[in-house]
C-alpha cells in the first residue's frame, strides 16, 4: 500500500531532519514542472500533481538513505540540482513524488591543476567552478547558455553540451569519473583515469540518465588551458542554409577544430544580427581558440575554406565577438523573458536534433515548411546549427508563437507538442536523432522506441536492472 503524503514527509524528516524537507505548498506547486511547462509558472495555472516534498540532500550518505526509503516504499523520486531542465524531466508525473534536490551539495572538492581535472559536488553551479578554475588560467571548456544557473549534477544527468563543443566535446567527453547513488541506496564511484579498456564504459550508464536510473552526487571533469587573449572570431553572411551547412561541413572535414561553429537561418539571425545582416541573410560564424599558433592557424584555415564559397560575404569580426560576449542567460534575462511572455503571450521554444551531413538540410527545410503551414499563430520559425562533428551536425530549431484562444496550461498541447511532433517525425524519417542535447525528459519520451529502434532493448534492460521498482523519475526517457 503506498504511503500517504504525511507518511512520506515524516519518513524523509526522520532521515534528514525537518529543516531539510520543504513542504511549503507554493514551492511544491512551482516545483511540479520545469521549463517545458513554464507558462504554468508565469501565469500561475498549474495542472501537474503536486509533489509531496522537496528533500534537500546534503551528503551522499543521505541521498543513499533517501533512495533506500523511496525504493522500499515505492515513492517516485525526481533528482534535480539547478532545476533548469527544459523537456519536462523535472515534472512530477505521478502524485506524491519526492524531489531530491542536490543544490546544497555545492562544494568544489578539488582542483588538480597538475592532472588537469576538477571534482565538484552535484550542486556546484558551473559558473562557480568555471570562475574558480579561470583564476588558475584554466577552463572546463563547458559553456552552455545556462552556465550561470545550471549545476554540475544536472549537466551530467542531461548529457549537456556547451557552446565550445566543437573543440572540447560534450559533457560526456569531459567527465572522467563520478559518484552516483542507485535505487536501494547503492553508492557507486567510477574512478578518474585518462582512459580504460576494462569492459564497457560504465560512465555512460550514468551520463544522460536524466534521473531515471540514479542520482549523481559528484563529478570529476577535465580541465584545459585557457587562452582568451588568442580568441579569433570570423563571420559571413550568405543567402541559404544549404550553403551554410556545406561550409560548416567543409571546415569540419578539412580537419579544423573551431570551438564555435554555427550557421543561423534568416529568422534566427534576425534576432541577433539584424544590425549587420539583411532580412533574408543567413549568418555563418566561427570562433577559434587555444594556444596562439593553433588559434591563428585554425582561424586562417577556416577563412581559406570558407573563401571557397563565393556566396559567403565576410563581416567584421567585431560583430561576432560582441555577440559572443553577451551569449549566456542568467537570472536577469530569464526574468525579463518571463515578463515579456506575461504581457505579450508570445512564447519562445526550442527543439534540437542531429543528423548526418546528407540529411540535415532536408530535415531543417521539411520541418520548417510543415510547422509554418500546420501550426497556427507562429511569429517566427527559424533555427541554427551550433554543434558540428566530422559526420554531421545539429539543428537547433528556434520558434515563437502567440498563445491565442486557449489558457496557458494548454500551450503545450495546442502548440509546443505538435511542433515537437513534426520535428521528431521529419528527423526520424531521415535517420537523425530527435534529441541533441536537452535530454528526452518527458516531452520527447513518446518517441523513445522510434529513436532507439532495436537498441531499445539495451535501454529498457538498463532501466529494469537498475530501477526494478520503477521509482526513478517516472515518465522520463521511457514513458509511463
Amino acid at each position: 500500500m503506498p504511503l500517504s503524503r504525511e507518511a512520506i514527509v515524516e519518513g524523509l524528516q526522520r532521515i534528514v531532519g525537518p529543516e531539510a524537507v520543504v513542504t511549503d505548498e507554493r514551492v511544491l506547486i512551482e516545483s511540479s514542472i520545469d521549463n517545458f511547462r513554464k507558462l504554468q509558472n508565469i501565469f500561475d495555472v498549474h495542472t501537474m500533481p503536486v509533489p509531496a516534498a522537496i528533500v534537500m540532500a546534503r551528503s551522499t550518505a543521505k541521498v543513499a538513505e533517501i533512495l533506500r526509503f523511496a525504493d522500499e516504499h515505492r515513492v517516485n523520486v525526481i533528482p534535480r540540482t539547478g532545476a533548469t531542465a527544459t523537456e519536462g524531466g523535472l515534472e512530477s508525473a505521478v502524485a506524491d513524488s519526492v524531489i531530491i534536490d542536490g543544490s546544497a551539495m555545492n562544494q568544489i572538492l578539488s582542483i588538480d591543476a597538475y592532472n588537469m581535472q576538477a571534482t565538484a559536488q552535484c550542486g556546484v553551479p558551473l559558473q562557480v567552478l568555471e570562475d574558480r578554475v579561470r583564476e588558475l588560467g584554466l577552463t572546463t571548456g563547458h559553456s552552455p547558455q545556462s552556465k550561470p544557473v545550471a549545476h554540475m549534477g544536472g549537466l551530467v544527468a542531461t548529457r549537456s553540451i556547451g557552446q565550445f563543443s566543437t573543440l572540447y566535446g560534450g559533457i560526456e567527453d569531459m567527465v572522467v569519473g563520478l559518484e552516483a547513488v542507485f535505487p536501494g541506496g547503492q553508492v557507486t564511484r567510477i574512478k578518474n583515469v585518462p582512459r580504460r579498456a576494462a569492459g564497457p564504459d560504465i560512465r555512460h550508464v550514468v551520463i544522460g540518465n536524466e534521473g531515471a536510473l540514479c542520482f549523481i552526487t559528484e563529478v570529476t571533469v577535465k580541465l584545459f588551458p585557457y587562452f582568451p587573449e588568442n580568441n579569433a572570431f570570423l563571420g559571413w553572411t550568405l543567402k541559404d542554409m544549404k550553403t551554410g551547412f556545406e561550409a560548416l561541413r567543409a571546415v569540419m572535414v578539412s580537419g579544423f577544430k573551431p570551438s564555435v561553429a554555427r550557421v543561423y537561418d534568416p529568422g534566427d539571425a534576425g534576432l541577433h544580427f539584424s544590425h549587420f545582416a539583411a532580412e533574408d541573410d543567413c549568418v555563418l560564424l566561427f570562433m577559434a581558440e587555444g594556444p596562439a599558433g593553433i588559434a591563428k592557424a585554425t582561424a586562417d584555415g577556416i577563412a581559406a575554406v570558407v573563401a571557397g564559397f563565393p556566396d559567403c560575404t565576410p563581416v567584421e569580426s567585431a560583430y561576432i565577438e560582441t555577440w559572443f560576449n553577451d551569449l549566456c542567460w542568467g537570472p536577469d534575462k530569464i526574468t525579463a523573458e518571463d515578463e515579456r511572455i506575461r504581457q505579450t503571450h508570445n512564447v519562445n521554444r526550442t527543439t534540437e536534433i542531429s543528423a548526418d551531413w546528407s540529411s540535415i538540410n532536408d530535415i531543417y527545410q521539411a520541418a520548417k515548411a510543415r510547422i509554418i503551414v500546420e501550426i497556427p499563430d507562429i511569429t517566427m520559425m527559424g533555427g541554427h546549427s551550433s554543434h558540428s562533428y566530422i559526420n554531421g551536425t545539429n539543428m537547433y530549431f528556434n520558434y515563437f508563437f502567440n498563445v491565442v484562444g486557449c489558457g496557458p496550461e494548454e500551450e503545450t498541447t495546442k502548440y509546443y507538442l505538435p511542433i515537437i511532433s513534426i520535428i521528431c517525425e521529419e528527423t526520424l524519417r531521415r535517420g537523425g536523432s530527435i534529441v541533441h542535447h536537452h535530454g528526452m525528459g518527458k516531452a520527447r519520451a513518446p518517441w523513445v522506441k522510434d529513436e532507439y529502434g532495436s537498441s531499445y532493448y539495451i535501454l529498457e534492460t538498463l532501466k529494469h536492472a537498475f530501477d526494478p521498482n520503477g521509482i526513478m523519475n517516472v515518465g522520463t526517457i521511457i514513458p509511463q
Partner: protein
Amino acid sequence: MSSLRILVSFKVTPDFEALREKDWLAGAADGSVETRYVRRILNCFDESALEMALRWEDAAAERGETASLGALSVGGRETEPYLKTLLALGYERVARVEPEAALDFAPAVVASLIAGYVRQVDRSDLLLLGCRSGPGDSGTVPFLVAEALGWPCLTRVLEVEPLTDDRVRVACMVDDGLLRVTLRLPCVLAVGNAVVSQLRVPTLTDRLARKNGRIHVLSGAELGVDIAGELRREPCVLVELEAIDRARRGIVIGGATPREKARALFDSHLKSMLEKL
C-alpha cells in the same frame, strides 16, 4: 470619439547592456564610443508607447470606433525591420527620417524633424513617444517637440485613455505620486515607466498580409530642416564619458537553518525598514 490620428515616435538604439565597460571606456577620451557592433533594440519607453497606441486602437474597435496609427523614427535602415513589424501589427502610416549624420547628442535637431513630420506630413492629433532613450539622450526631445508644435506636453505618462472627441485622460507620475489629468488634444505625451512595456508580436500571416506596406522615407530637407546647419547650432556637445560605479555591497546572512537566516534578515534589515513606513 471618431477616428483619432495617433503618431508614435520611436528610436532604435544599440543594446547598451551588450556593451562591455571596456568598450565604453575605449572611446571615453574623445567621446566616440563604438556601438555599431552591438545589436539593436527598441528603446524601452518607446516600446511602451507603441503598445499603448495599439491598445487604444483595440479599445476603440470594441466601442465601434476607429483610431488611425502612425509610427515615425528618425533613423537609418536599422529601423526598417521595426517599421515592418509595426505595419504587420496594424500601424497604417510608417515612416523614417534619414538622419544624414549622427544625432545621438542632438535633441533639438531630432525634435525639429519630428515636429516637421507632425506638422507637414502626418497631421496627428496625439503624439506619443518615450520620455527618454538610452545613454546619450538628454530627455528633452518631448518638450522641444511640444514647444515647436505649440502643444501641451505631459511626461512620465503611465496610461492614456479617450474621454471625449477632443480630450484624453492621462495618468502620469509626479515626484510625490500619481497625477490624473484631462488634456485637450492635440498634445504630446512622453511615456515613462508604464506597466505596459512590451510590444505585441505579429504572426507570420500578419507579416505576409502587410508585406507590401510602404515605409515612407523622408529627408530633413523635405521637412524643412537643414540637418547639417542645425547640428552646427546644436547646444549639446559630448565632453567626456565616465563609468558609473554600480557596485553594491553584499552581505551573506549566516544561520544553520532557513528559519535562522530569515530571522537574521528580518532583525538586521527588514525590521528597521518596516518601522519607517
